[in-house]
């Protein structure tokens, strides 16, 4: 049994790529060891720092096990003449490396053939790995690669500077990126002493620790957690503002982390918290510090890639940079106030929204139009939509793109607009709508807080999707450069959570109309497929929301969306009702019955060459008692279901439908549909057809997966 170590030494890998690459490496090597029969269930761990990726494995076989293979030779007719081996047999025996007397016979469908058992020697692990390692390394999938060497022989995330490959105490020789593998690694850039030798894999982690590298990312995370807590000790009542993604980043930016608490002048706390936190987190990668009530304190914590800061030099440096950044932000804030948001609307004429869709001024105009025609639809008995505020917000929403603060901190778009609107005396409803209108940024992000913000956010996203679809720029596969999927997910989530009674077909019609008469309209080349593309796109997004966002089973979602996918709120209500009803035994039977109905109708359709025309059901032609009973019950239930559906009382409607079960079961038990008598057959098909139509408006039950057939 052998231990194995591979360390790929690199110039600094981008932090955002490290976790995926390390996990990929672990998967690749586990697969490699199994594929090459060096281990059945490999014991391995993968490690990473900004300058290295490593795999450490134990219990590898020293070589692949030998395999005995059956090799087939010439047919026995050719191989033997008069019971004696012919030259053909002798040649085969030679080739297989066995005595002629050891040859065997096998019977195949084609006849009897000679055969030999050949022992294929397993290769040594060292040989296999020497061959496979460069291939595995080259196959790692990086989001962005580069060339660096003369002749440009390979692309990789960053230049490779050293390779350690050891099988126990022996080097596995290979070359990648112009570097030969060996046993020399590198320590921390400044705390280590340059190159050092690793004798065997089992010493890897300790020898790196001596060189001031904590190679185990989990261990670094623990050290950072501990250092953050320790750094907070000096400020009474202070706590860290939690930030998991920042923590992930600093774990991948350090080899030997430490944390240092810094401070800034409290006068900067007059700036909005959003601005302060963005500067600290996004630009400086500092953790913000808050009091027990969640209010920001004039402190921050920087995670360093060194062992401490005994003279306070590093703290002083970080404080200096942060102060300059805050100064900039304050300068921008003050400079921006000189031109009110309202006066910036005109400036939007020179900000491009999308090259074929015109400027942000054009967009603002469309948004103002959209929210003013749509506003009345969303009045709620308890609160009316503030239409004037929404209209004002639509015009102002994009004006912050002209501010210095947003040019500097692009991630604060919308938020800055909202803050300025409030500072400049606009109604709170206006400020909130502007502030929130980019939300939700992801499935986990909250939707806009107010109805005005929700409508504006939907209009903004729908306007973008409408324009892009009309241009024919529909997302395909992994290509979605304008993040239209995210925009559509946002619409679905907002509409669902704000219960907006919104018809997607109507919405996207109105959005298209808003482009009427514009320059953009002349470039709309994909109008013929516009509505069908939108419908298909949103069906997918809605499916995603109901399944991944709301956790519904895929067949329930399919059943509900087969009935209708243009009304988001309604689809959500229906899928909830279906999920609840599904547990009843009746429901399973109904689903089975509807599958049968669909099949029978399809067969009938196929027999007529797709041109099945059915007369209206005629009760007078109903012969059997079960047929009559089912027809009567359906006629009684259908209007009730329709009424309940109309009032969105889907639970009640579904239990009404469930009442059909005994009649349906009896019908299929006793009644033959496809009888010879054409009139009776058509009448029965007609009954089934109306059942399907009348009772599939909430969900297409035939989509539900059932256990029984």
């Amino acid at each position, binding site marked *: 049994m052998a231990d194995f170590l591979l360390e790929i030494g690199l110039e*600094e890998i981008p932090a955002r790529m490290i976790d995926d690459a390390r996990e990929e490496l672990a998967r690749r090597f586990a697969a490699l060891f199994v594929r090459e029969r060096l281990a059945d269930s490999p014991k391995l761990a993968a490690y990473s720092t900004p300058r290295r990726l490593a795999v450490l494995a134990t219990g590898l076989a020293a070589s692949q096990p030998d395999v005995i293979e059956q090799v087939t030779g010439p047919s026995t007719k050719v191989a033997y003449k008069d019971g004696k081996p012919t030259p053909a047999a002798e040649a085969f025996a030679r080739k297989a490396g066995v005595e002629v007397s050891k040859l065997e016979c096998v019977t195949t469908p084609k006849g009897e053939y000679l055969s030999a058992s050949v022992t294929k020697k397993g290769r040594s692990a060292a040989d296999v790995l020497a061959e496979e390692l460069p291939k595995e390394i080259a196959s790692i999938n990086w989001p962005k690669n580069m060339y660096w060497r*003369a002749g440009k022989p390979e692309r990789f995330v960053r230049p490779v500077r050293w390779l350690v490959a050891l099988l126990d105490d022996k080097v596995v020789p290979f070359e990648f990126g112009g570097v030969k593998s060996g046993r020399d690694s590198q320590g921390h*850039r400044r705390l280590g002493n340059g190159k050092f030798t690793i004798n065997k894999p089992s010493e890897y982690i300790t020898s790196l620790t001596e060189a001031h590298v904590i190679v185990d990312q989990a261990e670094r995370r623990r050290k950072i957690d501990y250092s953050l807590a320790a750094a907070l000790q000096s400020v009474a009542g202070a706590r860290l503002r939690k930030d998991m993604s920042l923590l992930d980043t600093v774990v991948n930016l350090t080899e030997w982390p430490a944390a240092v608490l810094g401070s800034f002048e409290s006068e900067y706390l007059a700036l909005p918290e959003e601005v302060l936190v963005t500067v600290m987190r996004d630009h400086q990668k500092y953790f913000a510090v808050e009091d027990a009530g969640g209010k920001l304190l004039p402190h921050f914590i920087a995670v360093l890639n060194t062992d401490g800061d005994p003279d306070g030099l*590093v703290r002083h440096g970080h404080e200096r940079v942060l102060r300059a950044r805050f100064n*900039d932000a304050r300068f921008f804030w003050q400079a921006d106030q000189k031109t009110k948001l309202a006066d910036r609307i005109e400036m939007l004429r*020179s900000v491009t929204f999308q090259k074929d869709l015109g400027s942000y001024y054009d967009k603002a105009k469309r948004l103002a139009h959209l929210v003013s025609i749509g506003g009345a639809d969303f009045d709620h008995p308890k609160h009316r939509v503030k239409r004037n505020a929404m209209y004002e917000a639509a015009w102002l929403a994009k004006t912050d793109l002209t501010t210095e603060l947003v040019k500097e901190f692009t991630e604060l778009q919308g938020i800055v607009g909202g803050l300025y609107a409030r500072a400049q005396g606009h109604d709170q409803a206006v400020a909130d709508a502007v502030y929130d209108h980019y939300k939700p940024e992801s499935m986990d992000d909250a939707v806009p807080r107010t109805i005005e913000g929700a409508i504006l956010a939907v209009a903004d996203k729908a306007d973008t999707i409408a324009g892009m679809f009309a241009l024919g720029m529909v997302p395909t596969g992994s290509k979605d450069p304008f993040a239209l999927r995210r925009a559509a997910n946002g619409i679905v989530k907002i509409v669902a959570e704000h219960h907006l009674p919104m018809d997607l077909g109507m919405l996207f019609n109105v959005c298209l109309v808003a482009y009427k008469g514009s320059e953009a309209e002349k470039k709309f080349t994909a109008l013929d497929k516009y509505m069908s593309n939108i419908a298909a796109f949103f069906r997918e997004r809605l499916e995603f929301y109901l399944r991944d966002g709301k956790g519904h089973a895929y067949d329930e979602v399919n059943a509900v969306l087969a009935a209708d996918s243009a009304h988001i709120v309604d689809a959500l209500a229906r899928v909830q009702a279906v999920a609840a009803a599904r547990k009843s035994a009746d429901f399973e039977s109904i689903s089975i019955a509807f599958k049968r109905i669909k099949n029978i109708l399809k067969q009938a359709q196929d027999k007529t060459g797709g041109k099945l025309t059915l007369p209206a059901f005629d009760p007078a032609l109903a012969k059997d008692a079960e047929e009559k009973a089912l027809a009567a019950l359906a006629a009684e239930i259908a209007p009730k279901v329709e009424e309940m559906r109309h009032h969105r009382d889907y639970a009640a409607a579904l239990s009404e439908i469930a009442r059909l079960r005994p009649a349906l079961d009896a019908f299929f038990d006793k009644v033959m549909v496809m009888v010879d008598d054409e009139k009776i057959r058509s009448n029965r098909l007609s009954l089934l057809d109306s059942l399907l139509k009348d009772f599939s408006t909430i969900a297409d039950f035939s989509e539900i997966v059932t256990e029984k057939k």
Partner: protein
Amino acid sequence: MPTMTKALTFQDLIFTLQKFWADRGCILQQPYDVEVGAGTMSPETFLRVLGPKPYSVAYVQPSRRPADGRYGENPNRLYKHTQLQVVLKPPPDNVQDLYLESLEAIGIDLRKHDLKFEEDNWESPTLGAWGIGWQVMLDGLEITQFTYFQQCGGLDLEPISAELTYGLERLCAFLQDVNSVYDIVWARDPRAGKEVLYRDVRYEEELQFSVYNFEMADVERLWKHLNEYEAEVKHLLGMHLAERESLTQGGGPVLPETIDRMTGGTLPKASLRPVLAAFDLCLKCSHLFNLLDARGAISVTERVGVIARIRALAVGVAKAYVEQQGVMV
């Protein structure tokens, strides 16, 4: 000996870095004397990274960004800041180590500081250039842009060059621990110890150029200049471009000898065509574009178009330059 412990002055910083890179095989060039937005735009980078010839150079480059002017009021932002540019073609394997040594050379004890290489890929659409690299962060301050050039003037590079761009003002402010660039000690008279500050040397320039860039530059004339310089570049390159269209089949490179032969000697020989002059004029266009931008004179529709026009010039120059290199090899 108090002077011994004092941080480097602005000019000492320049001396030290130049000496450092000269000692490691770089030739020292002077700042380019046409307005550029960054050291990358100097022909010492833009043109020298093209083609196969090895080249290592270091130079100071005052870089003008009209929109960044702040009338001398902002402690960290300047209309004209100073870069020290190092190009290593091809980069040695220990290029990062060399860079770190250069920091030690200017008095930074790396053992006592927090240093990180954070991903930052550089791209210039107007130059048709991009590269992969980092911003080097020293105690949270971005002091250098470190880039492995992958493409320039729309052309794939072979060999790759490494470009190190030191931001001298912020680096010097860090060394001297001052909060405003204007408080940087530019020079200290070794005889009397009298100090000249960055403010004394540059404040007036920042103020006046801010006034010019934002308020007084005549938009109509700027456009006119831009159009004329562009026409001149096209005049100088047009032959190359037109000929390439008529002569190439399948878009392969055109050998300058072929052009010479086909045009029957009506043009100066390829090796004598003034590609370098064309590039100067292309830089003029780029600076005029920046001025127009600072004046807020470029509308949406124009903006994309003008960038494309300048890019076409830069790409044209790059292609012509590479062709000439072919002749001279």
